[in-house]
């Protein structure tokens, strides 16, 4: 566990582990897949030494269902994987959403579809944000853009999971997971919830009435009522929207980008600002809830938009929906297979600005 204010140079994957440990993560269930292997490796070393549980599951499917079991007990628990493995976890994520269980799932995503590659990609935006599993549900999605944010957001993910009794995904990529940066650690005071009666969690009934956690609703009207209540919960998540605005006030063009791409675009924007180009950045940090109101506000003030992603265009659909009353968004997609540099985004931004080069 960390000492408050301690500054360390660590990889994003380790920052996620240290954030989870400091957030009171009591159980971790994982399976090997690149580029997230540092996470189960770290957890296998550290959690048992703290008297907490680590299980290398027989499959991604099993790991996610072990998470479901631990979450049903009301303890802080998580799993991590990368894109193909996250696909396999979708069954349990749907069940946890339907059963309203608090759980944290980390996706250090890689290129796809299929086996793709082991480099960075943002091809899992739709899966994460639109619900990769079956049924009408939502999960909160947090996308760190720095290693510090990876540490901070995994802690926030646990708090949100329990605040809403809902799965929360932290969506990073191979850049966030493998990059080393200095991180200021926080306090390690969050409880693991092991002995807490949260009013719904399973502990063995003791002297009280038995509790049942399920997603099956067969009686007439029960499922509709359940879905309506879930919808209201998902709408209420709007109050936890997170984003980072950078030099937007006087900008003619706002670049919208998330995660590592938002971070790289910020460097491009700094360079273009130095040559007098009025460009700003809006970086959604919570992808669900999506910062639609803020984008609408920016659009209403007459800005133009360029969405940049590390895919063929996924978040851009949500950007266009958000700004549809006032504006449209251009799109530039950097495809997986190589790492984008700040220079890669210069021409697309200048083109969107209407600058002839």
């Amino acid at each position: 566990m960390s000492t408050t204010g301690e500054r360390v140079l660590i990889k994003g994957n380790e920052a996620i582990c240290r954030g989870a440990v400091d957030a009171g993560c009591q159980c971790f269930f994982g399976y090997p897949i690149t580029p997230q292997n540092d996470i189960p490796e770290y957890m296998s070393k550290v959690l048992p030494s703290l008297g907490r549980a680590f299980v290398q599951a027989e499959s991604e499917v099993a790991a996610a269902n072990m998470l479901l079991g631990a979450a049903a007990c009301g303890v802080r628990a998580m799993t991590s994987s990368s894109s193909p493995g996250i696909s396999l976890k979708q069954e349990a994520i749907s069940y946890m959403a339907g059963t309203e269980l608090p759980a944290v799932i980390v996706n250090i995503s890689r290129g796809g579809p299929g086996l793709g590659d082991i480099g960075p990609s943002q091809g899992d935006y739709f899966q994460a944000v639109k619900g990769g599993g079956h049924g009408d549900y939502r999960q909160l999605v947090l996308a760190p853009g720095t290693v510090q944010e990876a540490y901070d957001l995994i802690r926030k993910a646990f708090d949100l999971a329990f605040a809403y009794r809902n799965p929360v995904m932290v969506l990073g990529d191979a850049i966030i997971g493998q990059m080393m940066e200095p991180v200021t650690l926080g306090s390690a005071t969050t409880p693991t919830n092991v002995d807490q009666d949260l009013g719904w969690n399973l502990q063995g009934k003791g002297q009280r009435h038995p509790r049942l956690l399920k997603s099956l609703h067969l009686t007439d009207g029960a499922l509709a009522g359940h879905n309506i209540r879930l919808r209201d919960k998902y709408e209420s998540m709007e109050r936890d929207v997170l984003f980072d605005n950078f030099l937007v006030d006087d900008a003619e063009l706002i670049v919208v980008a998330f995660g590592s791409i938002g971070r790289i675009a910020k460097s491009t924007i700094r360079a273009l600002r130095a040559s007098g180009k009025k460009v700003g950045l809006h970086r959604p940090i919570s992808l669900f809830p999506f910062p639609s109101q803020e984008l609408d506000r920016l659009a209403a003030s007459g800005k133009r938009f360029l969405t940049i992603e590390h895919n063929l265009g996924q978040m851009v659909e949500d950007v266009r929906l958000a700004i549809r009353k006032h504006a449209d968004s251009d799109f530039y997609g950097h495809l997986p297979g190589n790492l984008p540099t700040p220079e890669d985004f210069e021409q697309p931004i200048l083109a969107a600005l209407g600058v002839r080069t």
Partner: protein
Amino acid sequence: MKNGKEAFTLPGVLADIPTHYCPGCQHGVAQRLVAECLDELALSEKAICIGSIGCSVFIYNYLLVDSVEAPHGRAPAVATGVKRARPEAAVFTYQGDGDLASIGMAETMHCANRGERVTIIFVNNTVYGMTGGQMAPTTMVGQRTTTCPGGRCADNEGQPIKMTEIIASLGGSAYAARVAVDSVKHVRAAKKAVRKAFEAPLNNLGLGFVEILATCPTNWKMTPVQANERIAAELIPYFPLGTFKDVTELETIEGPEVAE
């Protein structure tokens, strides 16, 4: 009761409500044995039940213990998560043959191989019941189902899987037995096996596993009496009853039925 002692009562942990099971179905007997053992071992206050998918799912409506519903086949993985989060709980799954031996085969075998301190109650009625009688991994060769209408063919669909033998072969299991509930004698033996399957993990010895051969008159297209007779006539010759592993007594009894 006048001039005598009460010989048969409702276990305290069993809800006093009618079940949804079809006439002649032996899930009711199986779940009653679980309830009696939970009562006798005083486990109801610290038990956590993992329901599975199939006719067995509604176990949580009948047992008055904390329960969670697992996705199809995943009960042993969910039980692993529950047990690792709450090591002091008495954790058990209640699963049918399609759930445990087909879609949940990996979860079942690895849970047993890790020696999770949990109990698995496996009700084998050789057919997918709730979905309407499709072929199960334990469907007998020649048995007709809606997805093997000509009868299960070993060349095409393989032989029925003998789960208890597989579980007994894994290092992490402490107790593995196959029982039936088609006669009073067998019910008594089944009760002892269920009790041992709960005791083994609680004594930190490993996983406890009981396979209960059971009827499905509806999908077997039989009367309850015919279905009950089929257990001894067709199932037991292929799925022999017995204790296949019992580290609680440090001996392995192959073949013979569980001792009375």
